[in-house]
């Protein structure tokens, strides 16, 4: 029997109702996000249904101590925080020492933040967005474009949260080994390549559809876009493209209205 299978076998059963309550709360994990404790209160909020399973329930010093501990400062990607929630719930119910849990919480912050950012914000989200824009450019109907984006994105989103909660619960404080999962290690690179492909397809097609009939300007526009993108890349770190767009559109609107 493999070590992973042994761990899975040893994990106690988390009641379905508790699991569902934790999952629903995970969707609101950033509800009280702030610059002092970041995700901290959200972690406590998500773990609380599991802590009710501590011996004696919610009116014991052990419950209050665990909830206070779990509601302190924490930072992670919101989707991958589910790994921490599962692992910390398991650690609390296993009766791990507070010092060990504190060390574990501190160690988990960095990896869950950076892996999640690369996988989701810099990978899956732009890929789904660009693939939907390509679909839009190909002339797909409104419902197809929006439906494709929401379904594709959220299949990945919900799968990641569910996987995280299950993996965290299964492995407890040994969850670091699960973060070596091939999807987390190699996924960002692979999705990045697909997103680059989707960018190339989506930009000309989306331009074509937005401009609409009489596309004799498209050649000039594509050259202008290439130059514009180059300028924005060169300005990287000094001015953001959306701010530049705001200024240029304001100037253009004033010119068109006043002249």
């Amino acid at each position, binding site marked *: 029997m493999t070590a992973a299978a042994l761990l899975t076998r040893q994990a106690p059963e988390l009641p379905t109702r508790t699991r569902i309550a934790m999952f629903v709360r995970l969707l609101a994990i*950033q509800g009280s996000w702030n610059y*002092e404790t970041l995700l901290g209160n959200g972690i406590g909020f998500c773990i609380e249904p599991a802590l009710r399973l501590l011996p004696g329930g919610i009116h014991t010093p052990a419950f209050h101590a665990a909830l206070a501990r779990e509601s302190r400062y924490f930072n992670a990607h919101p989707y991958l925080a589910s790994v921490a929630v599962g692992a910390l719930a398991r650690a609390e119910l296993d009766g791990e020492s507070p010092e060990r849990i504190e060390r574990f919480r501190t160690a988990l912050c960095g990896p869950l933040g950076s892996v999640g950012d690369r996988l989701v914000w810099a990978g899956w989200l732009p890929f789904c967005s660009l693939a939907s824009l390509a679909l839009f450019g190909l002339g797909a109907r*409104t419902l197809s474009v929006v439906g494709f984006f929401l379904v594709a994105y959220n299949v990945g989103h919900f799968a990641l949260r569910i996987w995280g909660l299950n993996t965290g619960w299964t492995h407890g404080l040994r969850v670091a080994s699960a973060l070596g999962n091939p999807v987390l290690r190699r996924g960002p690179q692979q999705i990045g390549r697909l997103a680059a492909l989707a960018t190339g397809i989506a930009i000309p097609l989306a331009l074509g559809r937005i401009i609409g009939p009489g596309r004799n300007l498209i050649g000039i*526009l594509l050259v202008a876009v290439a130059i*514009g993108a180059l300028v924005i890349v060169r300005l990287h770190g000094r001015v953001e*493209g*959306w701010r530049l767009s705001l200024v240029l559109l304001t100037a253009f609107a004033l010119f068109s*209205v006043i002249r």
Partner: protein
Amino acid sequence: MIELVALIPIALLGGILGLDVVSFPQAMISRPLVASTLAGALIGQSASGLLLGAALELIALETLPFGASRYPEWGSASVVGGAIFASHPSHPAGAMTLATLSALATTWIGGWTMVKLRERNAVWAGHRRDALEAGARGSVVSLQLMGMTADFLRGAALTVLAYALLAPLAAACISLWSVDARVSRCFVVGLAASVAGGAAWKLFHSTTGARWFFVGGLGLGLFMLFLR
């Protein structure tokens, strides 16, 4: 003149989509492609909403919600932009420019209101510090619910104020617009695509082989464009 009753659905949609950006459930219904289409559907012009949503989505690719960074809030802003554009279903000259401009202005203010809300959340947490240190269940749950409620109200208020202010202004500007409709639209789309191109470079330039995938995709995209 905008009727007050007509603002209620727009305010509710702005509140829900503003909430989705960070607080609940981050299912990306707040992305411009979706949010602007939903706003258009409220006006009865979902296709117009999608058209503007696509342009805004290109710009929004640059501002992804990384960690604790400050970023513009696209949910409420896309509702404002989408509703303004959809209110002019014949797409007169300047409509897309002004709707995009309205969305960008709202997204800027929206980002600022999110920072203020996060500061307010910290104040509310500070008021409950003793209870949180004692592991009081009610305080943990109420802090979470209070943050989400405030975020919903923030999004709704921002949307309704921005729409009430910017929709009449956009309508007035459209009546004075002097640049050709196609040139105006090309200007907006060109800017949006430039931002998207720059964003793609920032996101993928360090990925091995990504530039070749981009070149291949561009060839394919251009080929399909000229086939159509």
